[in-house]
């Protein structure tokens, strides 16, 4: 059975790209797309996804703030941050400290992505 994923990204194109990549991987199904942190919180509550892929940089409530809010609602939320600003260490570090399972950077490498997602379901 495929795993339910919520994509949080302000860019329509980027969300579509992620949906395509997850489709290519199989085993994952994007059940919702939120364009900002506030929407993400709402959709998380209504869709109960097993995994959240969240862009770090977004307008309104940014990824870090949204991560904090999501983990407050559900401390066991499985969130992987997506960064198009590779190497911005401090934000990635903050996300990991807060409880993000991992940070993946763009452009995506399919095989690396597969490993990161699989491990997110193994690791505590």
């Amino acid at each position: 059975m495929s795993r339910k994923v919520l994509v949080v990204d302000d860019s329509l194109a980027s969300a579509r790209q992620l949906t395509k990549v997850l489709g290519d991987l199989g085993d994952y199904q994007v059940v919702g797309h939120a364009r900002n942190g506030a929407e993400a919180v709402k959709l998380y509550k209504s869709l109960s996804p097993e995994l959240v892929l969240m862009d770090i940089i977004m307008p309104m409530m940014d990824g870090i703030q949204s991560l904090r809010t999501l983990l407050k609602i559900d401390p066991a939320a499985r969130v992987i941050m997506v960064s198009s600003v590779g190497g911005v260490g401090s934000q990635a570090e903050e996300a990991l400290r807060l409880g993000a399972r991992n940070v993946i950077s763009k452009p995506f490498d399919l095989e690396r992505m597969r490993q990161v997602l699989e491990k997110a379901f193994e690791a505590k």
Partner: protein
Amino acid sequence: MGIQFFGEFLIERWVVTRGQLIEALELQEYRNLKFGELAVRRGFMTPDQVREVNELQRSTDLRFGDLAVAKGMLTPEKAREILTYQKNNYLMLGEALLELGHISEDVLERELAIFQEEQARYRVVEEVAMPEALPAAELLRAAVDLTRKLFLRVAGITVKVAAGRDADGAPEGEFHLSVGVRFTGSPQVQYVLSVSSEIAVEVASRILGQDATRESEEMVEDAVKEFTNLVCGNTAAALAQQGKDVEISPPETLPAVPAPAPGSRLVVFPLHVTEGALDLRFRLEDA
């Protein structure tokens, strides 16, 4: 993947856990003293002077030591002494992980080799010819080079870059869309990529993973913005690896390809493609 720090690479590959990485980063922070801290410890500068230099750094690209010397707070010899100490005593992330027992020497060696091979794809080359007396030359060089590399990698488009020059008017060719991203720093730099409709659709098709000919205008525009964001994000990462912190603004659609205007310098890098038209220019404020 893109440009990454070694720590991000290790965690993305799950070689270390996030807790182990954080512990190693904390050890690095504790051991690798900042220039200002060392200057105070050695009695070369007062804490107030350090604060003043930190404040000044917000509006300049100069490094702490160079700024302190320029302000007459430190002699060049003392600045060199601190730099040498920092260089000789710097604890690398791999060393920190080793010391904490979170990685073995064999694994570290193997991962470093893979990391370096991957990152070599993004290494900025010096071949792009730049106009003379150009401020922020490093930023422009990295951005031009990454534009070329990511066009090939992400969109499958081969781009040839001609020598940069000061723009003297509007570009040749028909452009469908111009997207700008601002970099903080001194001078403030705006990266502007203009694309013809063929290129816009091609970029969108590659990013979306399907033919974008029938996609909405908003989706195509969004894909070009996403591409621009990727180039500029990787440029910021390349600069961060050189120790220069710059931030980028979200990409915005511009009403037209920017033309020369008073109060800023406009530098253009002609980009040649076999089909369609591309223009890359940088606006340098107050330069």
